[in-house]
């Protein structure tokens, strides 16, 4: 196996899924002849043809609405939203329809669509090419939410998503699309949902992260090691379903938690994690739970490095939590 990038792994995952099952097809803007603005669908039009790699008009409403109709009919559409920031015209279809079809039909109409979207900051994309709004989807009953942070997980979680029977919001951390590389198994490689990844063991504090925040969390842990602080790093991989057992067990061991995400703090997914810990790991907690997050502002352009959590900010929070108890 050679090392490939995260976006290449997405590409291989898509190709694998399409080879496995003729019912799998792709819909999105600029995904065909252009190969996707990030090249995630490069080469797929050529291999699978225009009936299965469908360049659509500029309407996310239409993309997700038609994908839902296809899924009801029995196909397995994978949708690309060009940037997560542009998913909102489809929000009604996602939260009112996609997430609720199985439930509202009493199980008669499952609706299995995979919605892929590059997300997150760090690419000088400003307000509308940087946002991390995973919490909207995690809060919506009926949606699963997967976020890889390595090439192997990108392919493995994507194939699990395609084989799942439920709608999946699949968020790709575009900042590390090319900067993170790794070996990726060939063929039908799958990574189960609801199983967090232990990135690094530690005993003094648990660092929870996902997506593009995993590398700075690891970097912070390495820095802290030199200071005599042993930080465990856990990559959640899926927010829904959440591997609560792993999250709770880690804090039972370390007694301290620092949660990292790019999204704005208020009502971000870190709030949910903190709430789980404050309920279920309460007696193990030795220090306040810290959140290292994006600020409660829109995502800025010139100052994105001020906005984004990085290794230093994470390490700073860990030190405070360790000092506390």
């Amino acid at each position, binding site marked *: 196996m050679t090392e490939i990038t995260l976006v290449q792994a997405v590409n291989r995952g898509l190709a694998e899924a399409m080879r496995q099952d003729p019912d799998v097809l792709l819909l999105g803007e600029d995904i065909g002849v252009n190969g996707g603005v990030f090249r995630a669908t490069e080469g797929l039009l050529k291999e699978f043809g225009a009936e299965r790699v469908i360049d659509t008009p500029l309407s996310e409403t*239409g993309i997700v609405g038609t994908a839902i109709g296809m899924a009801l009919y029995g196909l397995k559409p994978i949708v690309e939203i060009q940037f997560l920031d542009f998913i909102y015209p489809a929000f009604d279809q996602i939260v009112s329809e996609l997430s609720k079809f199985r439930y509202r039909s009493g199980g008669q109409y499952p609706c299995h669509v995979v919605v892929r979207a590059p997300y997150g900051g760090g690419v000088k994309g400003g307000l509308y090419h940087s946002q991390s709004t995973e919490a909207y989807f995690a809060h919506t009953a009926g949606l699963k939410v997967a976020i890889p942070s390595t090439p192997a997980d990108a392919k493995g979680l994507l194939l699990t998503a395609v084989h799942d029977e439920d709608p999946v919001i699949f968020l790709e951390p575009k900042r590390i699309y090319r900067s993170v590389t790794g070996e990726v198994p060939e063929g039908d490689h799958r990574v189960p949902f609801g199983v967090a990844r232990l990135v690094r063991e530690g005993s003094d504090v648990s660092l929870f992260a996902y997506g593009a925040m995993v590398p700075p969390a690891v970097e912070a842990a390495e820095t802290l090691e030199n200071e005599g602080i042993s930080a465990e790093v856990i990559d959640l991989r899926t927010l829904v379903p959440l591997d609560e*057992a792993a999250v709770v067990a880690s804090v039972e061991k370390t007694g301290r938690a620092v949660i990292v995400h790019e999204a704005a703090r208020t009502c971000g997914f870190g709030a949910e994690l903190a709430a789980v810990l404050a309920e279920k790991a309460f007696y193990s907690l030795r220090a306040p739970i810290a959140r290292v997050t994006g600020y409660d502002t829109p995502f800025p352009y010139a100052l994105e490095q001020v906005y984004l959590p990085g290794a230093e900010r994470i390490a700073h929070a860990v030190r405070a939590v360790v000092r506390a108890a």
Partner: protein
Amino acid sequence: MTRATAVRRGAAEVTAPPAPPSNERRLEAYRWMVLARVTDERCLSLQRQGRIGFYAPLSGQEAAQVGCALALRPEDWVFPAYREMAVALVRGASLTEIFDQLIGNARDRIKGRQMPNHFGFRAQNFVVASSPIGTQISQAVGAAMAAQRRRDPIVTVAFFGDGATSSNDFHAGLNFAGVFRTPTVFFCQNNQWAISLPRERQTRSATLAEKAEAYGFPGVVVDGFDLNAVYGAVTEARRRATSGEGPTLIEAQVYRFGPHSTSDDPRRYRTDAQLEAARQQDPVVRLKNELTAAGKLDEALDEKVWASAKEQVAHALEEAESAPPIDPRTVFDDVFAERTPRLEEERRAYDSDPAAGGGR
């Protein structure tokens, strides 16, 4: 008699509509329309009595719904709004199933999950309705794209109202249908009202049908009180769709005789005179007169038709009302194919102390 009018010539010609349905077919249509009318009236009174929680009547739209449904085939897919009870009946949902849903009992196909009128019958390719206006339109287009891919010679039909022409999904759905030339029939029942908003304040176009032209395919206005016209227009649209000629938008011009729903008081926004004028065109009476003129119906048979409808309704209602209520623990099912750990936990919490699990 048949008055399907091609409003504009878009991407394709609208050819002359086919011959009207046979007398037998029209008598069948009449039976359905009477059954729908009787059910409708019964439901309004059931709601007043508190035996069902809500109802949205279709009275005035019987010819539109029955005429459209009869022109379809079982393998076609219907994407209804919340007012298409008669369509469900014609497609084979039983009256008892209808009442099961209106009541939300243990037998309800959708497990009591939704308000009355939000039917879904997989066996009848009658996709489960939702309340948000218009969302089914782009979904119907997607299902048609799927049928194209599978080479299934079917059509998908999106039902919606005049109000829904302002929705995002109308625009997206019709645009995709035009671009991908999908086998879709867009069946708009223009009943002149979106709750209290009259048609002419919904949009400034002269007709709703002409909006199809913006998407490169034809739109047709039909007199929705006229069963034959509706049947003809849908038959032709279906033919076009299955021969690869693409989608059609049909505007069936009708009038909503009743309130928007049992929560609505139409006297706040329209006059009795207006309503009475519309009632002159009652589609049930009109078809009755036609059938009588054709020698297919007399008073005796007509009485039988009505009596049978009433009996069917009484029987179905009794059945539905005697079914047990829904098991509370089903609330945790069907969110996903399998319950997540969190849903298991919530269900266990409810189970361990149901008294504390509810809203009391």
